[in-house]
């Protein structure tokens, strides 16, 4: 029997469509996303689009001002540094190094953190409490301190600083996953799955994980902005990326040496890091409020 339908049937967009719609409604978030995509583009295609090799030293062209300055040259859009390297290319590659490693670090930290967090969340009693306390203590230790110790043990370098930051990011993911899993475990739908005979693994994969992805995305953007800042901070302190690797923090630190003569060597890398973090933050905020809007419905 066909039902008389005078009124439109409700459309049921998927949760992701919902989120995207809510996200789209904020112009700032869209601009942030565009800038972020630009950085992602640099991260993947820097070798294809960069006009020069980032380590190529043109000794004929030391400290050329950026192209908009009166005596700048269009050949070097952002000018050159004290070694005659094209700053624009270095920034592009710098985005690749800084952003790429940050992304990698966040993904690793997320995988490890979610695993530990889920186990900790599903555990109960003394074991869970021990895991909790250890992790919380670890979370309290400043990233820089962890980095310094790792550099002390392994020596400085980009990879070692990545380890340090991964280690520093893991506790956050563990913390959030743990409290999320604990909260979820108390809910009835998990109870009913358990009564259906689902094993812990099945429980995690089919019931908890799909609900957790949003939390992870939001947490991931947060962690990403922290990772970018930390990677560049370590590069800046010369504990992370070593010369001649173009890493934004390290580029800024080198720029400081010629800072008075060539202020663009300070300004441009700084602005790049700032924009990168800003776009990540804005996209993260946009996502979060979009999710909140969806949940509030």
């Amino acid at each position, binding site marked *: 029997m066909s039902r008389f339908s005078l009124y439109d049937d409700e459309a049921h967009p998927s949760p992701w469509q919902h989120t995207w719609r809510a996200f789209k409604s904020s112009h700032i978030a869209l601009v942030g996303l565009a800038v972020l995509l630009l950085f992602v583009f640099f991260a993947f295609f820097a070798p294809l689009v960069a006009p020069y090799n980032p*380590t190529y*030293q043109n*000794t004929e062209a030391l400290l050329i001002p950026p192209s908009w300055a009166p005596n700048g040259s269009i050949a070097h859009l952002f000018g050159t540094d004290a*070694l*005659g390297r094209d700053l624009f290319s270095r920034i592009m590659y710098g985005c690749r190094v800084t952003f790429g490693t940050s992304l990698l670090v966040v993904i690793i930290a997320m995988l490890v953190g979610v695993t530990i967090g889920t186990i900790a969340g599903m555990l109960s009693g003394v074991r869970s409490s021990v895991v909790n306390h250890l992790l919380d203590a670890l979370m309290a230790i400043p990233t820089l301190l962890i980095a310094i110790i790792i550099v002390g043990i392994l020596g400085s370098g980009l990879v070692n600083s990545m380890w340090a930051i991964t280690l520093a990011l893991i506790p956050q993911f563990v913390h959030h996953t743990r409290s999320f899993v604990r909260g979820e475990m108390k809910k009835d739908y998990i109870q009913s799955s358990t009564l259906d005979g689902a094993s812990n693994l099945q429980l995690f994969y089919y019931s908890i994980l799909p609900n957790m992805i949003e939390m992870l995305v939001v947490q991931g953007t947060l962690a990403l902005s922290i990772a970018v800042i930390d990677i560049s901070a370590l590069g800046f302190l010369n504990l992370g990326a070593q*010369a*001649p690797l173009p890493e934004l923090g390290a580029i800024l630190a080198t720029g400081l040496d010629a*800072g*008075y003569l060539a202020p663009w060597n300070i300004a441009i890398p700084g602005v790049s890091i700032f924009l990168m973090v800003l776009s990540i933050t804005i996209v993260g905020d946009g996502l979060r409020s979009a999710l909140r809007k969806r949940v509030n419905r």
Partner: protein
Amino acid sequence: MHKWLVWPVISTALLTLLGGCSPQKYSANYTNGLVYCSESDPISMNPQLDTSTTTADATAHQIYDRLLEFDTESGRIRPSLATSWSVSDDGLLYRFSLRRDVKFHTTDYFTPGRPFNASDVLFSFNRWRLPQHSFHNVSGGYYPYFESLGLADNIADIKAVSPYEVEISLKQRDSSFLANIASDFSVILSAEYADVLMSQGIPERIDRLPIGTGPYQYADYQKNHYIRYDVNNDYWQGTPASKALIFDITPKSSLRLAKLMTGECDAVAFPARVDHQIIREREDLVLAEKPGLNIGFWAFNTERPPFDNPSVRKALAYAIDKNTLIEAVYFDSATRAKSLLPAASWAYQADAQDTGYNPVLARQLLDEAGVAPGFTMSVWAIPVERAYNPNAQKMAELIQRYLADIEVEVNIVSYDWSTFRRQLRQGNHDSVLIGWSADNGDPDNFYRPLLSCDAIPSGTNRARWCNPAYDEILDRAIQTEDVDIRKALYFQANELLFDKLPMVPIAHAYRYQAYREELSGMVINPYGGIRLGGVTKQRD
């Protein structure tokens, strides 16, 4: 609805933000004192123990005096704690008459009971000279300057003829002896203080809480932070005008310049080459320059294969374009080095042989020596600015590029300065970018500490290269006073060095000093550390 909240919130926020920004200009002239921004921590408070400029700057002319000193204008030797000296005809016996009524520092930790006399000279010399001396092994027992020159072995005896007369006899003639006595490292310590410390069982204090006769006396030192000196009110050359002297330790050159600009420093060590233009443009700053007796070089660790092979070393030398290095790193404030000696030295050889830029030949030489493409080596770059190499890091990066062209990969290694030197002394490097500033005007002061066999254990021979033929040439050169004979011998040494190439000489740089225009009496010491005793600060 929430109007009542607006004003308290806004005013609190604004007050907190604005509270800081008081509009008056910051000025640092509170106390009559001099602030010098130095680049690093001194290794010790006794320059006998270390050859680095940092240590010499912080101690040699501030806390101590020598028997003789160099005139800052002419570079000639002139009396200091010794009022006069004589040399025997055979050049083996030196006699010094000492100045009377020179008082040692009176500080919290020591009050001198007697003025300076011959026993202090004996103590100061015997400490580094005699291995059995009770103070020889205090603080490591390691006196690099004297060991690298072989001075300890060459002194046969030293004795006090009277309380104010000292005689030193040598085993062999040494035409650079007086210059060495006048160098930064031949400081005079207090024997009385040493005795007191020894009786208290804390002899190592002598190098941490120093007592000397210089214009300033040690007050306080905090690592990585500052060294504080008080004025020596009884200074024999007249009490300095400044009541205090502070060494503000600031490793980053850009920060040092910033502090100079804000007036937080009155003078800075090693202004970076890129900043010279800015210093010149500013009316309140002065940039003094003088051709320096120094050399920046790239030394290979000849104890490590494949760098024990001269043709490998040559190949690497041909791979780099020295002119570009000089342009990029020294901003043309240096001259290209062909041999060890700068043009200002009387033994300078204008037509010395030099390696040109020839990467094809370089690769060919490497192939012949069996060094395969993809070979990896380390280039150590000094972490501090020096006159002879204002930015070794940058130079290392340039070299890295050049060597990449001949398919040699380069790791740039850099540690903190003191760690760097420690590691370097252990010979952990493949090659190093470093240099040497003369302590006196004698050519021997270049050739011997840098490459003689004796200089390997003392740590100044960065190439760790030992060649008996070379040492013999140097020994012959200092046993005569005849300038032409010496010149010829040094030319011969140059030829040998070009052939073996344990190091690539890169540049002789100008020496620079940046200070605020209120200062007067700032002079560039041609040899060694900075002298702040005669500096005064005018105030408006």
